[in-house]
């Protein structure tokens, strides 16, 4: 399953560079097959599935052994990752005795040899970061939990059989969307990008949400997004974090492509005579008028006071504004309800979307010509999970593009690790090999990473430059410098 994903032309020789890739991904529970000869029962999911059974058992057994071994040193914190020359394994125990293991092949360079000898392979063991891929594993679990609830829940409902079914169904598709080569600091943060908005427009959105929730009292929670950025969440922060991830990396990109397509493109969904507004369902029925339309929506699990809560997820979008309505899964959603929602939300959301758009352009005009940030930075606030990056391009379904070299991204990751180790505010300034300056600042719960391309700048100038950035971009928050 490993695949060469990108090629680079080296100076004279033709070197092949391989980015990190997923070798295997498996989930097991050691308590399910404690006796010899029953080892296979431990394995709940294994990717790639075409691996020979004994090898699966061997790999799982190895992981089990490593975890068990390291537990003797620190019973509360068993091993999280295992570094080897060729690959790196990540262990994660999301629920008691359930282990998720992800094996990532290290990036490598293939140097062809003369005389027809087989090419030498150089593994770059230190190029990948534990924090980044550890976060990826945790994200996998969170995403599973969002749509399926905990492993324990499936066990209660239908035993191992149901659980393996669910895992198979979910991870088969999900793993294909993992793009390990483009994982970076942002995956560690798992932040939410907020849409900047003036107070009045924000209050209008509030008013809209409240009114909809009042007139359609089935709706339990509402989230409001614009331009793939969050504006309002009725869900708690941790649930919103993963739902946001799903919306922005999966649901929206899937639907934006048809939107971007031309009016007459066959990709464009049928807009059934709704001339009054631009509202449409992103989940559930694509066309309300269709007599065959099914009114089934994806179900999600969020934390509630007593464990979890199962909800229908209705995502409704008009132009760039998207509203997510969440309704208790115990309620059967009918055509009537959807029509009612369409009729109520459609026109209002269309109006709001154009209001927001208008406000946004006004604000951008006010904020002046330097809307193109000269600085490349990543900002993250642990308190509200707000993230802001001028390094990353617009996320699409397929890839997450960055505008800087992976080496720099790795430095950012390293600085992040340093920050995680201590509790105090600190500042780290690094001069990268490529003449870039990388500055990391941590103030209270906030982190800021700046990449400066000033070859001849000295430390003082870099410091001044960062201060200027803080003064312009973060003048309304308390950021110690």
């Amino acid at each position, binding site marked *: 399953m490993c695949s060469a994903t990108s090629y680079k032309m080296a100076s004279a020789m033709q070197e092949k560079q391989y980015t990190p890739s997923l070798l295997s991904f498996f989930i097991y529970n050691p308590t399910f097959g404690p006796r010899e000869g029953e080892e296979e029962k431990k394995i709940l999911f294994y990717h790639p599935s075409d691996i020979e059974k004994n090898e699966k058992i061997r790999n799982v057994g190895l992981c089990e052994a490593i975890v068990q071994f390291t537990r003797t040193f620190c019973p509360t914190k068993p091993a999280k990752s295992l570094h080897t020359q060729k690959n790196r394994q990540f262990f994660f125990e999301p629920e008691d005795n359930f282990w998720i293991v992800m094996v990532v092949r290290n990036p490598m360079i293939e140097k062809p040899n003369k005389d027809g000898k087989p090419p030498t392979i150089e593994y770059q063991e230190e190029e990948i970061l534990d924090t980044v891929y550890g976060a990826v594993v945790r994200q996998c679990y969170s995403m599973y939990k969002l749509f399926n609830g905990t492993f324990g829940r499936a066990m209660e409902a239908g035993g191992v059989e149901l659980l393996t079914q669910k895992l198979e169904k979910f991870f088969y598709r999900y793993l294909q969307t993992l793009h390990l080569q483009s994982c970076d600091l942002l995956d560690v943060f798992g932040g939410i990008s*907020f849409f900047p*908005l003036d*107070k*009045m427009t*924000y*209050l*209008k959105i*509030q*008013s809209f949400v*409240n*009114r909809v*929730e*009042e*007139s359609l*009292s089935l709706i339990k929670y509402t989230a409001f997004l614009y331009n793939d950025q969050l*504006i*309002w*969440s*009725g869900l*708690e*922060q941790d649930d*919103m974090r993963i739902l946001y991830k799903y919306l922005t990396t999966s649901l929206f990109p899937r639907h934006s492509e048809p939107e971007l397509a031309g009016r007459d493109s066959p990709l464009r969904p049928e807009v059934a005579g709704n001339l009054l507004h631009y509202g449409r369902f992103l989940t559930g029925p694509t066309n309300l008028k269709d007599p065959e339309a099914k009114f089934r929506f994806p179900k999600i699990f969020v934390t509630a006071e007593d464990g979890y809560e199962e909800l229908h997820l209705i995502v409704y979008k008009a132009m760039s504004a998207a509203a997510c309505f969440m309704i208790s899964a115990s309620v059967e959603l009918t055509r009537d309800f959807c029509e009612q929602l369409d009729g109520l939300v459609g026109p209002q959301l269309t109006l709001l979307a154009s209001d927001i758009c208008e406000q946004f352009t006004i604000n951008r005009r006010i904020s002046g010509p330097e809307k193109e940030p000269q600085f490349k930075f990543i900002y993250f*606030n642990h*308190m*509200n999970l*707000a993230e802001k990056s001028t390094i990353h391009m617009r996320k699409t379904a397929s890839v997450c593009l960055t505008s800087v070299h992976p080496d720099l991204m790795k430095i950012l990751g390293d600085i992040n690790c340093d920050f995680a180790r201590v509790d105090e*505010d600190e500042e780290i300034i690094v001069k990268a090999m490529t003449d870039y300056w990388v500055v990391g600042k941590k103030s*209270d*719960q*906030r982190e800021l990473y700046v990449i400066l391309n000033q070859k001849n700048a000295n430390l003082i100038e870099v410091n001044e430059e960062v201060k200027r950035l803080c003064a312009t971009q973060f003048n*309304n*928050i*308390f950021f*110690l*410098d």
Partner: protein
Amino acid sequence: MDTSRSKSGLNSLSTSSLEQSPAGRRSSGLPGTSGALKALRSRRLLLSVESLLRRWNPEPRTGARMTEPPQQHYLELSENPVQFEHASSVNNVFFDEANKQVFAVRSGGATGVVVKGPDDKSSVAFRMDDKGEVKCIKFSIGNKILAVQRTSKSVDFINFIPDYPHTEFSQECKTKNANVLGFCWTNWNEIVFITDQGIEFYQVFPDKRSLKLLKNQSINVNWYQYCPETAVILLSTTVQGNILQPFAFRNGTMSKMSKFEIELPVIPKPAKLSLSERDIAMATIYGQLYVMYLKHHSRTANSPSAEVVLYHLPREGACKKSHVLKLNTTGKFALNIVDNLVVVHHQSSQTSLIFDINLKEPDCAVNTHQPVLPARSIHPYRMPLAGPAVVPSQPPVPCQLYSSSWSVFQPDIIISASEGYLWYLQVKLHPTVNLLQDKGKLMDFLLRRRDCKMVILSVCSQILEGGVKGSLPVVATVFDKLNQVYKEYLEAEQSYTVAMESGPSRGSAAQKRPVRTQAVIDQSDMYTHVLSSFTERKEVSHKFVIAVLMEYIRSLNQHQITVQHYLYELVIKTLVQHNLFYMLHQFLQYHVLSDSKPLACLLLSLESTYPPAHQLSLDMLKRLSTANDEIVEVLLSKQQVLGALRFIRSVGGHDNVSARKFLDAARQTGDQMLFYTVFRSFQQRNQRLRGSPAFNPGEHCYLWYLQVKLHPTVNLLQDKGKLMDFLLRRRDCKMVILSVCSQILEGGVKGSLPVVATVFDKLNQVYKEYLEAEQSYTVAMESGPSRGSAAQKRPVRTQAVIDQSDMYTHVLSSFTERKEVSHKFVIAVLMEYIRSLNQHQITVQHYLYELVIKTLVQHNLFYMLHQFLQYHVLSDSKPLACLLLSLESTYPPAHQLSLDMLKRLSTANDEIVEVLLSKQQVLGALRFIRSVGGHDNVSARKFLDAARQTGDQMLFYTVFRSFQQRNQRLRGSPAFNPGEHCEEHVVHFKQLFGEQALMKPSTV
């Protein structure tokens, strides 16, 4: 023919004979012919022939409204009507719309005229001669002059001004052959006669008893109407009577306004008078003068129902037909104006309708209005039975409403002449609330009413508490309407303030301060009466509560009204109550809750339950940019001293910041390097600012000087007592206090002794308190935990407790050794300290006495010492006694002093014996020990030793025999016990005095 009478005040008048008028009376009932709009001015109302004479009752009888609530009556008659003698054959009643006075004229005035006004001040009673039937009677404004019309040619005048002649004088109309239709006062001395051929405007000179014609205008007049509020007279002209000519009067001038035509439903042929004065009324509505025309559609016309047509009569410019009120019925009507509402009474159905011409009707054509509310009758009313013998318990009788004997006057007056009542019509707002389902329209309606505030607020509460589904848009609409009015008021107020500040010179017209009507519902009203109680209701979902609060804030924002802090507080409180911290976070992120210091403080207080509140609060303070001090405080409280220092530098506040605060915080961290850094940073600042690293006295940093051992003495706080008070409350004060003490003592400034005394007293007060606490703790512990109900805590010994040992070690011992200080001062100081300790009932430690004695002895002040001891200034103690003993060589009396002391101690018998023995006073010692009863237990050997050392054999013999006797007495044998180690002395005795001298053990 004049008949003078004795006068007393204004009530009795000289009366002159009156001519009998041939002209017919205008008596009129209400409502008269079909659909007559009743509008009578000060002509006689009703002459009813029925009647028993009712006696004049000076006390107004209060009527009572019936308390049946079945229908929602939104109109009512005033509670306290004006009562007057009802109309009868001998009593004519007139009403003057200008002064709102009712005149009861009995027998043409001969038996009295009683004038009743809206208040007692305007009520008058007087008599005048009966000179014929009175057709019209009115006071000028302020009751200055009375005008009476008795003939159709002239009007008579009577002065009511004190000291002016009271004789009547008369004025005939100027126009030949004209009949006077009536007259109107436009001022206290200006009057207009309206004749059938025009109007005549006069000024009255009461002193000269004459009138001067100011202006007149010839015009054919059918009838006239007068609006006293605007002083406009409306004349009906032409044959049909439908061309109306208004005249306005002001300060002696008369101006002709543009005339206008009332559209008649049917043009009669041949032409005849078709517009009755009963169908026309004038009134001001929303500050504008309107002519109201009650249009009865003729039966031939298509639209069967009647309507009221309003013509707007501006001061300048043409009169325009502006509003049409649809009555949707026919019959007899009468009009009132109450609180800018047009009230239309319908007699046959006994109901009334109200119209608000400013209420926009979406479903009607422009300026056509339907009734605001469904037709309802006036609230039932009961009148108390009147009569000479009123029984109090007699129940009041219901009053017949919409009676044909009612007369209706503008704006809001209803008179029942036959019963002698004048009521004001009133609108009750509460019943309207349930009659108008459209809450937006209801708000529009209520906001224009006078006493609307409480009703509006209760409507708001009602909407919110109803919690009806889908009520949020209604709530939003209501809030928007309220805030629109609120905003307009705020803007007016602001522009007034600006105008006032820029001075009167610029504003050409003196701007009037805007009146705050009841319709201005500000945030405080809303908070107090609606929101605070609403948010506390348990049955309302918190989601709805928050939605409502956000709607209100949205509406305020939309109207650019600054939201008050308490609203934010309410939002936060509600969110926190329901643990909706994330929601709060999002609101703050978008600045929905505007930044303010109080809000930031509130957030800070939430930190314990919601840690991110700390960050939110700091961000907010940062944005405020005026809250740098607060930020520093917050950071320091979190022990982020360097962060605070960096912050204050970055905002350029380093130079003015209080160094002490930072140093305090730095010390609390216990991090010495940090303290050093901060201290140096401030020293550098001082150097930069003042050219010296020293701190200013005002910075109260001397503690830190001492701390850092820089310039140990700075006279920062001159008042040492105050300084001590300050220091004693500080945490790490001990060393500083001690050094201050040293400083005071070593300064040796003249007159410093009182200061020293004060300082010692302050120190010892604290010391004493600690000792007491300690002791009561010990007692409590000893008595066991059973007695002390609450577990007593061991008192904490703070650094402020400076005990004698501290004082001795750090201050006094070194002080007494200083050469340059006079011994007198030294002793004075020591004595002060001892005095202070004694004053606080603290046991003085021996070493202090020792110090005193040492000092005294050093300076040979034995006598002083002696005196001190004599007065027990130096308390008795064994060590002191020993010390004294040691002084014996230099000051022999010390021996005695010492012995005295030991004696006083009473536990020092052994010591006394030792002293005596050491002085070879063996017998003395023996006698002493015997006297105190210690002889039996005393060590014989000590005495025998001492006795042998004297070399006095006799003494030795005596002592030896004495102990032998003791032994005999105690043990029945003179022999010594082996443990007494007296063998040596027994041998010595044998050598000296022989074996036989030894006492034999007695065999008795």
